[in-house]
């Protein structure tokens, strides 16, 4: 329809042009031709306007149809994503369950997941030798010393002192800041030390040669100060002149290599940080007395069941006659009372893990 109207408009324009130029005769004839062309042009304009008004519902319908098609496509895409996410959730749940079983088998004390609370940085507390912010959350809402402060980009700092309604967040760049970090890929461990510059320095590196510029640096969780795996920033290699003072590290195996210093470019913009999440320290759950007793029982059972029938007691020397009733009664030896050790010490001894094969041997028995 629009095409027809366009043709009509073109034809009208042509007629108008001819009316003005090709009409033979005097000026009167030319004026008459112009009038006709003008009227024709008006008719065409009206027709175009009318047709535009008439086609509005059609255009709206077409637009609605296009939107519907797009919406249907988006819906289909989201349904696909939803299905994928549900599958991933199922897989993650399975992994979580499997991880819990592995931890139980290994006797690993569970690491509590950090929850934390959100606060806003409302002020500065800096000086030439310090870089800190003031957060509007204090002991009243449960903030404690040592809480990690992160935002959506990464680690910002940690809580160094707590008031009733506010707390001081020491930034990564503060000279008093010491944070155990590691490279995400290389797993190089280091201590990140602030020096009031925009990029804190990495000291005490385990193997600097394995670190690569641009590698993501994360909290290592060593010492339980911070949860493990929080993004801190990106590794930056700084070449030093031979006369430079300070910490230097030379890549081993590269004779003549210039001394370098590794720094971390923080992922979070520390100057623009406003809202932060304050995360509690990584706590290792203590093993209660019941669990300790169960572990000792499991260890004792393992010692008995892993011994073949008729074998000499563990307390007797090889070749010596077995004690009376040892082969028949197979009484489990009284478990030695184990002192309650630290979490690390408990995880080092894995009595439950060694009990697993014993159960199968017990089935044979």
């Amino acid at each position, binding site marked *: 329809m629009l095409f027809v109207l366009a043709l009509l408009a073109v034809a009208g324009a042509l007629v108008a042009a001819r009316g003005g130029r090709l009409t033979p005769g005097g000026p009167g004839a030319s004026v008459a031709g112009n009038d006709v062309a003008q009227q024709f042009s008006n008719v065409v304009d009206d027709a175009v306007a009318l047709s535009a008004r008439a086609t509005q519902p059609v255009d709206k319908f077409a637009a609605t149809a296009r939107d519907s098609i797009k919406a249907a496509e988006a819906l289909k895409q989201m349904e696909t994503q939803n299905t994928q996410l549900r599958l991933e959730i199922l897989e993650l749940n399975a992994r979580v369950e499997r991880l819990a079983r592995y931890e139980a088998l290994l006797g690993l004390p569970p690491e509590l997941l950090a929850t934390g609370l959100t606060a806003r*940085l*409302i*002020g*500065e*507390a*800096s*000086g*030439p*030798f*310090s*870089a*800190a912010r*003031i957060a509007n959350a204090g002991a009243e809402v449960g903030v404690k010393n040592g809480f990690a402060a992160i935002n959506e980009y990464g680690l910002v700092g940690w809580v*160094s*002192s707590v008031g009733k309604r506010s707390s*001081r967040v*020491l930034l990564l760049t*503060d*000279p*008093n800041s010491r944070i155990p970090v590691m490279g995400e890929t290389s797993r190089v461990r280091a201590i990140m030390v602030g*020096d*009031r*510059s925009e990029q804190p320095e990495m000291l005490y590196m385990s193997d600097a040669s394995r670190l690569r510029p641009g590698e993501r640096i994360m909290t290592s969780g060593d010492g339980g100060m911070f949860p493990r795996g929080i993004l801190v920033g990106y590794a930056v290699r700084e070449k030093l002149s031979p006369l430079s003072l300070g910490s230097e590290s030379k890549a081993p195996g590269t004779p003549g290599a210039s001394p370098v210093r590794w720094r971390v470019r923080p992922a979070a913009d520390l*100057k*623009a940080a406003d809202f932060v999440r304050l995360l509690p320290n990584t706590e290792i759950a203590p093993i209660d007395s019941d669990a300790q007793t169960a572990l000792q029982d499991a260890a004792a059972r393992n010692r008995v069941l892993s011994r073949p029938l008729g074998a000499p007691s563990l307390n007797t020397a090889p070749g010596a006659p077995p004690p009376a009733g040892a082969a028949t009664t197979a009484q489990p030896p009284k478990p030695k009372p184990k002192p309650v050790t630290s979490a690390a010490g408990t995880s080092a001894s894995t009595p439950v893990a060694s009990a697993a094969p014993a159960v199968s041997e017990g089935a044979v028995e």
Partner: protein
Amino acid sequence: MSFAGASDDSTRFYFSAGLVVLYLFAQLSPLSHLLDPGYWPLGPLWAAYGWSRGGPSVRSALALFALGLLQDTISGGPLGLWPFAYVGAYAAAMAVPAGLSENAALARAIAAALGLVACATLAVVTASFSLGTMPPLGPLMVSLSLTALLTPFAGFLFSPPKGRDLY
């Protein structure tokens, strides 16, 4: 308001000390996107310089010590850093050679320079003891430079009444 015309010494003293307190609390405002608080001029150093022109005074030394403690608390820096730095600057600013008292402008410049150097030295020494390593000097240098630049304009707030200054 004319400080030079005020006659009551105590009023002038407490008013100027109050100004420094306000200035220190202003550093808590979230203005780091404009100027990092570590770079702000050292307000108490102006007071140390101005009060030193009135001669030795226990009240001034105690006030500077208290102002330093306040700055330590506010900035979260090593406690004790600024009190010693400001009292040291106050003492150093009074160590202008007696022969220069006739040339007031030169004596004031030397007093300000002595105070600045003493403050910087004591701050760095105390910070290095506290941090266990050489502290970063960049922010302190910027801060001291801004303090020196603004001393001619801000120093008059703390100067003694006319006729009572040493030089």
